[in-house]
């Protein structure tokens, strides 16, 4: 059984939109970060779908690199959030509105 490309792209779009919605409506910095991960995964799904469609391994190599990027990004981002929490005692992004104080 072969999954059609349209279905893969539609699923990827839905997941990406959920991620965008999460970034827009949540105010907790960590939840926003998780939504960004969700968007990265949506793009990964589209890449794998195209890799299947064009019968080539290149898309999967890109997915591999995106996963590496996501791991690095999570490490640095969570370190930033923890440093921020240490300074401000909050991760609510409505209260974090100064670059330096």
């Amino acid at each position, binding site marked *: 059984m072969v999954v059609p490309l349209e279905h893969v792209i539609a699923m990827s779009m839905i997941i990406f939109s959920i991620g965008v919605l999460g970034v*827009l409506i949540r105010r907790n910095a960590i939840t926003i970060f998780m939504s960004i991960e969700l968007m990265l995964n949506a793009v990964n799904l589209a890449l794998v779908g195209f890799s299947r*469609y064009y019968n080539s*391994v290149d898309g*999967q190599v890109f997915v*591999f690199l995106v996963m590496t990027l*996501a791991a690095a990004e999570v490490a*640095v981002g969570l370190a930033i959030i923890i440093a921020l929490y240490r300074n401000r005692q909050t991760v609510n992004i409505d209260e974090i509105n100064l670059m330096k104080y």
Partner: protein
Amino acid sequence: MVLNRNAVYSAISLVLCFFSLAVMYLLLEAYILAVLEIFIYAGAIMVLFLFAIMLLNLGREEALPNLRYLQRALSIFLVVIFFFGILLIMASGPDVLHQPSEKFSAGGIYSLGESLFSKYLLPFEVASLLLLVALIGTVYLAKRKI
């Protein structure tokens, strides 16, 4: 996942989502990526997230003040516009998408490794350098006194 106020519930839903995505990779015959998805995302990244949530002792997000509901409605509206915009672009595009070929030869670990170490050797090395930089940056940021 995004509609829940509690960050821990969101994280657990995200783990479920990653497992579902791994199953989708299996359906698309990207076997090694399905395994990597579970290892890296559901294993490493989510443990890091849960660890940070527990470290910061996040409770429930408090309800919005009344003024902000307009902002929320606007963001939902924007996302819907975004979604249907892409849908429209896809629907109006040239109709080149058809069934992929039945036979697929690029799903296993052999072809991925061969491509990664020959054609994409430089991006691979840059990715390892990126991981090193992220490691150093994280240690630098997490130190109490810089």
